[in-house]
């Protein structure tokens, strides 16, 4: 499609969004504390955090809706202002749609705010409505659509301008698995065209699935950042999945085994680091074993551990 093809001119790998030492205070409350990260062309970046961690504030600062107290945010080396926002797409956490408008009116409205011509908007709208199987809703009022379809419309509104940078604040909220897949495909398509994507989600599997790099925020502070692969590798705790005729109490006696759980005939053994793997294997080597797999912890575990640690401090 015309819109997708136009995005091909983006240079993959070049420096795109740069957030440097950004701090934001609401009164005396520090919402974001010296946050720094960069997102390159074609990269998908995850921003994680529990409620009130500062994710939405960060997005608002990137979009210029809020001014930071210190630090700076640049896109291709330029401070983000209204001359650059035409190149950015933004899906807000709550649905930002004028519900009395029809789908077409709404997309034209947002598209025109991106300085697009009406005919270009209509061409791209047809493409995306087909892609999301909602062409029949083109002339329906937004308020008549289901939450899932409203979310799709919001997504289309954000990408109708072929953005260089796409900000997705909880984009999968209210979507069923089929719609989640449709949205994921669209996000991947945009990534392939060189669009940089930042998104936040409470659902860790989405972040784990999508993001190469991430930042975990707790009360505005960065508690973990970097490549997802490195984060997982550096996280010492591991999980061993064992299926067989073992005695769990024997394993619990090993120094370094943190927990043994049984789930439908399979045992999950949490260990403090990889040096414990051999001791566990030797302990059960005399038993009848059909499965012995060592896995890195899920992002969810890391998140809970990090957020919990931070709250404990």
């Amino acid at each position, binding site marked *: 499609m015309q819109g997708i093809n136009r995005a091909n001119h983006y240079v993959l790998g070049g420096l795109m969004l740069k957030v440097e030492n950004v701090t934001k205070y609401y009164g005396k409350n520090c919402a974001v504390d010296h946050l720094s990260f960069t997102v390159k062309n074609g990269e998908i970046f995850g921003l994680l955090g529990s409620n009130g961690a500062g994710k939405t504030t960060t997005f608002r600062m990137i979009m210029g*809706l809020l001014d930071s107290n210190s630090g700076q945010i640049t896109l291709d080396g330029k401070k983000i202002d209204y001359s650059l926002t035409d190149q*950015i797409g933004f899906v807000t956490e709550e649905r*930002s749609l*004028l519900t009395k408008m029809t789908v077409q009116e709404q997309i034209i409205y947002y598209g025109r705010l991106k300085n697009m011509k009406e005919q270009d908007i209509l061409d791209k709208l047809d493409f995306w409505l087909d892609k999301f199987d909602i062409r029949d809703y083109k002339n329906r009022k937004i308020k008549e659509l289901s939450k899932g379809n409203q979310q799709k419309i919001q997504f289309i509104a954000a990408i109708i301008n072929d953005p260089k940078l796409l900000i997705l604040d909880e984009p999968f909220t209210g979507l069923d698995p089929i719609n989640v897949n449709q949205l994921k495909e669209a996000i991947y398509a945009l990534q392939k065209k060189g669009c940089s994507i930042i998104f936040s989600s409470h659902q860790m599997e989405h972040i784990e699935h999508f993001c190469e790099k991430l930042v975990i925020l707790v009360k505005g502070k960065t508690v973990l950042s970097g490549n997802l692969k490195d984060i997982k590798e550096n996280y010492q705790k591991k999980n061993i999945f064992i299926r067989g005729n073992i005695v769990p109490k024997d394993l619990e006696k090993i120094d370094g085994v943190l927990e043994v759980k049984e789930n439908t005939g399979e045992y999950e053994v949490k260990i403090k680091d990889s040096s414990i793997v051999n001791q566990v294997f030797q302990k059960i080597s005399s038993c009848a074993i059909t499965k012995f797999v060592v896995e890195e912890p899920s992002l969810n575990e890391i998140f809970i551990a990090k957020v919990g640690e931070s709250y404990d401090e």
Partner: protein
Amino acid sequence: MMNKFWFLTGSSLKKKLKSKWFLVVNILLCIVIMGVMNIDSIIKAFGGDFNQTNEILVLDQTDYADPIFEKNLDAYNTTLDMQYDLKVEKTDLSLEAAKEQIKDTDKVLVVLDSTEDEYLKASIISDSYIDTMYYQLLYQALSSTKAEIAFSLTNIDPTELQKVTSVVSVDRVFLNEDQTSEEENMGMIMGTVFPTVILPFFILVVFLIQMIGAEINEEKQTRSMEVIISNVSPKTHFFSKIVASNAFVLFQGFLLLLYASIALFLRNQLAVGTTSSITSEIGNIWNSLVTSGFASKLYYIIPLTLVLMILSFLTYSLVAGILASMTVSMEDYQQIQTPIMMICLLGYYLSIMAGMFEGSTLIRILSYVPFLSCLLSPALLVIGQIGILDVIVSIIILCIFNFVLIRYGLKIYKIGILNYSTDKMWRKIIKAAKSKEV
């Protein structure tokens, strides 16, 4: 950014003009204006006994009073323009028989009698109540009849008696040529300023305030404000709302004028064959304006009033926009906009009453105050209480006030439109106004 500004302005205007609310209100306004201006024709169109004959039965026990009474009754009915269709009939029946005759009818029995002390004594007898005007007509005719009988019986020359009993003639002179009476002032305000300035302005201000509040709150409530403000600056967004709402009220004002013109045209059509026509009515109004010396002032009153109206619309829209930015729902907005509506209402009543309190320093000072000046200044100007210079001062004050509103209001707006909390709202407004950023 200018493209986006005009797009937002156009969208806002188009949305308002396409809304069902606009259509319904305008249909109602059109019907009301046409109805009010043609109310007499409408009442007549529904039929009714408008030419009912008023039958009067006269029982003359003096043998001389009846002809004089009938003559006076006819004279007063004509000179007082009461236009009753009177049918007077003298009866020779006894009082009881005459009472029996008018029982269960609309007829009125007038019994004329005299005593040693009174030249004429009368009774007005009816089956039920009669209207006050009708009673006044009978009373006046009876009083004159009594006087005439008295003149003839006492041989007093009526002219001489008139000289003695007539009230003192007082010629009231105002050295200030522009000075007019309270009645004239009220007549001038109610006849010219009220229908052309005060009432339309009040209606349009209500439209203006509601429109801005509804739009901003809809965008806030649906959170689309975040997407809009991420694409256009709050300043652009604010001015697009102001321009759109002012364009809307000017268009609505034009529509009101159009409805009034259609109503006048209809009145003219309905008046064909009768003495009243649009040209004669307009001619009468113009003649009264010329006689009062008001017509010669129109060349400066009209432009000054228009400038005041436009600047005042701007003031009201700026304040409404700023307040709407701090609210998160229409319910909140309805509460916060109440003081503006109260101020507008105050101006509305003060302008109507301006003629009653001639020379009032308070009203004169209030005519300089933004929000009120558009309503008060034209009224005071028309009755000669203030001059051109006073209106120019009001215009200058309005310009300065609007400048201050824009300067500090923009700061409040920028913070307000993305603020979804109503806690400590006034503190937030003051804090925002003090901030250095725009």
